[in-house]
């Protein structure tokens, strides 16, 4: 890892070991981030975005567990750190995170200042007037009045709360800030203003940022690099510009096409049929194959490798040099998959069983019983 790289992640795998089986929420994630640069991470709900974020802090909650892989953060191997070491050495100081939904869980009984001062006291032993001064400076940095320090969360609007949380994440001058859905609950005008502030802060403070969201249009505004996730896999990774202009992975392609545009008239929106898979039992071969419009026979059996295409990493058989793969038959598009997968995805094996038991046909008795 050279000096320009702040973060290097290799084959990172995090699973949740539940009683229903192992949820393969993140498998073999590999990417890197340059100092001062930003990565956007996108993908549909449940694909493993937050799991990846928690893994980077070595803060995966049980039953989750980092199974394998490495995370090199500014020279420190994060996966080797114990909980107390992670707290001492990296969290807040080197990397801080704005958690998904953090806004809703601000403690109502403590003032903004009280909540902000906590990390300053714990990590730097700074308290009292000095702490207040620093907090106020950071509040102003995110376009709030210093006086917010004395206010309580219920007195603030959603946008103000989110700004307080961002200011707190910046307090200890980390090199890297992870923002998990930082604007999802906010109105567009407030969202645009916060994104503006983040763009500005990144330059002023020279920090690296990881933006996580399901909204690809927001990422287009702030990401140098883009990682597209599907069902626990990073399926495409590269420069954001390249990926937006010419998406390579069939999933990315459809995801981009589903974004409506306010400038042009369109008759129909593109979408991806079917539902996301159950990660206890993900589909064989390529996890996207049951929903992929370009799937081939080989996709059902063999996990695709990562291929480099025009500088972008793509996990898809379409870009394989292997002739036997390149010549594989186009697969029949599998529409029956959707209904089965739905019950399974949302209820695991139990849902499937229940579905089988209740069956598809109804007898007169059952009708009476209801």
């Amino acid at each position: 890892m050279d000096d320009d790289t702040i973060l290097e992640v290799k084959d990172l795998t995090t699973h949740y070991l539940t009683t229903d089986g192992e949820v393969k929420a993140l498998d073999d994630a590999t990417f890197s981030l340059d100092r001062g640069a930003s990565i956007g991470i996108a993908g549909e709900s449940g694909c493993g975005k937050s799991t990846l974020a928690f893994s980077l802090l070595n803060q995966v909650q049980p039953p989750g567990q980092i199974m394998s892989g490495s995370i090199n953060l500014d020279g420190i191997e994060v996966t080797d750190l114990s909980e107390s070491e992670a707290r001492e050495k990296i969290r807040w100081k080197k990397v801080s995170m704005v958690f998904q939904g953090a806004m809703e869980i601000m403690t109502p009984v403590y003032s903004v200042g009280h909540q902000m001062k906590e990390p300053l006291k714990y990590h730097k032993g700074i308290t009292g007037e000095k702490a207040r001064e620093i907090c106020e400076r950071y509040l102003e940095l995110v376009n709030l009045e210093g006086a917010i320090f004395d206010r309580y969360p219920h007195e603030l609007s959603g946008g103000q709360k989110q700004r307080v949380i961002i200011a707190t994440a910046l307090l200890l001058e980390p090199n890297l800030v992870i923002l998990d859905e930082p604007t999802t609950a906010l109105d567009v005008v407030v969202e645009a203003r916060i994104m503006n502030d983040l763009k500005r802060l990144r330059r002023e403070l020279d920090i690296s940022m990881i933006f996580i969201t399901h909204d690809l249009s927001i990422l287009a505004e702030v990401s140098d690099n883009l990682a597209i996730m599907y069902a626990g896999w990073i399926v495409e990774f590269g420069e954001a510009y390249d990926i937006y202009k010419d998406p390579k992975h069939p999933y990315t392609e459809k995801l981009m096409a589903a974004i409506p545009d306010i400038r042009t008239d369109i008759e129909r929106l593109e979408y991806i049929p079917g539902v996301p898979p159950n990660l206890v039992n993900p589909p064989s071969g390529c996890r996207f194959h049951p929903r992929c419009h370009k799937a081939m026979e080989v996709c059902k059996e063999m996990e695709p490798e990562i291929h480099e295409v025009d500088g972008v990493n793509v996990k898809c058989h379409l870009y394989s040099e292997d002739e036997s793969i390149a010549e594989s038959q186009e697969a029949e598009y599998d529409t029956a998959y959707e209904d089965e997968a739905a019950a399974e995805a949302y209820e695991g094996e139990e849902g499937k069983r229940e579905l089988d038991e209740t069956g598809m046909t109804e007898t007169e008795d059952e009708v009476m019983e209801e």
Partner: protein
Amino acid sequence: MADPLFKARNLTKHFDVTQSFFQKLKGEEKLKVRAVDGIDFDIYQKRNFSIVGESGCGKTTVGKLMMRLLDPTDGHMYMKDKDIADMDSKQQLKAYRRTTQIIYQDPFSALDPRDRIRTILEEPLMIHNLGDTREERTDMVKEALEEVRLTPPEKFLRRYPHMLSGGQKQRVSLARAMILNPDFIVADEPVSMLDVSVRAEILNLMKDLIEEEDVTYFYITHDISTTRFFTDYIGVMYLGDLVEKGRVEDVLDNPMHPYTQALLVAVPEPDPERGQGVKNVPITGDVPSATQVPSGCRFHPRCPHAEEICKKEEPEEKEIEKEHTAKCHFAGEIEFDLDVAK
């Protein structure tokens, strides 16, 4: 042009704010939330109308008034020329509600988790005494499931909501609305909680049903980017008032009201070539409380173009081009270019 299917005139809903004992004791003046503050609009058959605006501007309240789930404080509403604001007999209301249905934002709580899909869809039929026998009703339920592409319907009848994906649940909500063959559907943020791709799938389906089932939607959303695809007309709401309305292409390509202009600048730009710079979002501050609507033009404290007159006089609705109106003293004089603004 044909007569409107639905008309609202001076439609108003003010809520009383509950006062604390001490406020009453001190004789403080009773505050009112001016949630919907005298709005007019027309909706034509099979021409969807969307209403956009920030949280708390009154969108849901308009939807509930249209359904008569709330009683208006003032004003009139007409469905095919029948006054529905004054309608008060239970029977009339029941008949009206059969022709007008509502779909809510949250597919996760809109359906009772203890009921099977069949029961959920059968319920509206029972309420309105439709279908004489159980078989007949089951057939109607199956037909409704087919309409929303949950096929084969037999597969879904006995499932519970938790056995469906978010998109499938929202299709059940849609089926529940469609089963009574309504003329009109109020869709209150029907896709806000869904992933982009599922969102697209549901909007496509809803759009198909316009022709297939002769239905018209009143689409409530805070996401202006879906309106162009889904609707023909749009109304922009700010603090209880419709500040701009017109054909969706006209309003989005040529926004007249400074608030609409700000909303459009704020929409995230899916093209990295255009979006990376810091945007010039022209408005600051937060939306004022609906209990203290500013004098004159209600947008003046946040408006970058405000002049003295704006604080004193409420702007009239001006028609700038055919069917395109804005409530701003300077409507038509303020230059706007989406690309330059960024």
